[in-house]
């Protein structure tokens, strides 16, 4: 039951959900949710491969750094979203159409 194939299937499903959430939603924060899902599926793949194939802990180090970078990315991304909301009064993706203020 617990094998590389099943882990790949789960992270594949997570990846597909992440992509679908990013496309289906028009709210910027909801898109950031999708990004978190995709980062999780990538980290899960690393750990699965390091467990079933080469059996050392390099995969753990890689997904540890993925978690670190995902946290930083969420922090900065949400900071931008809040600043964008203060300027445009809405977090709708279509409002982010112009480059200037």
């Amino acid at each position, binding site marked *: 039951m617990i094998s590389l194939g099943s882990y790949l299937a789960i992270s594949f499903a997570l990846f597909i959900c992440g992509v679908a959430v990013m496309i289906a939603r028009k709210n910027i924060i909801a898109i950031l949710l999708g990004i978190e899902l995709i980062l999780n599926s990538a980290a899960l793949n690393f750990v699965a491969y390091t467990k079933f194939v080469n059996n050392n802990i390099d995969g753990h180090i890689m997904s540890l750094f993925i978690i*670190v970078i995902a946290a930083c990315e969420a*922090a900065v991304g949400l900071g931008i979203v809040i600043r964008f909301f*203060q300027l445009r009064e809405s977090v709708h993706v279509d409002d982010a159409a112009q480059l200037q203020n």
Partner: protein
Amino acid sequence: MSTYNLDVYMPIVILIILALAIGLGSLLIGKLLRPSNPNKLKESAYECGEEPVGTAWANFNVRFYVIALIFIIFDVESALMFPVAAVFKQFNQVGAGGTLLVSVLLFISILLAGLVYCWKKGDLDWVKSFNTSTKLKDK
């Protein structure tokens, strides 16, 4: 399937199931025993007696976000530091404690610089500090 030592996680699963069982169970038992005659007055939000005005979901001051931001950066820092701290004693006994100490101090001092920056720019003080800006205008 080679059974390997996953028994360590059994209590965690059992405790979480117990917590949910206690939570939902007592609510269900309560639903049977409890009087339940909702009326409009009971159901409205508590406003010290007056009629609740507008939704509560008005947005808030950004200060809450800056606090959460500094929290998650220091949270990730401590998460990275835990494995290194756990092996510091072995490194010390082997004699390689010095280099690890230098790298740990470097790691902490860089993030301390971040905290000092936020401190100086006034992100940490909760009340808007007017003294700096008003002083310049009066002169």
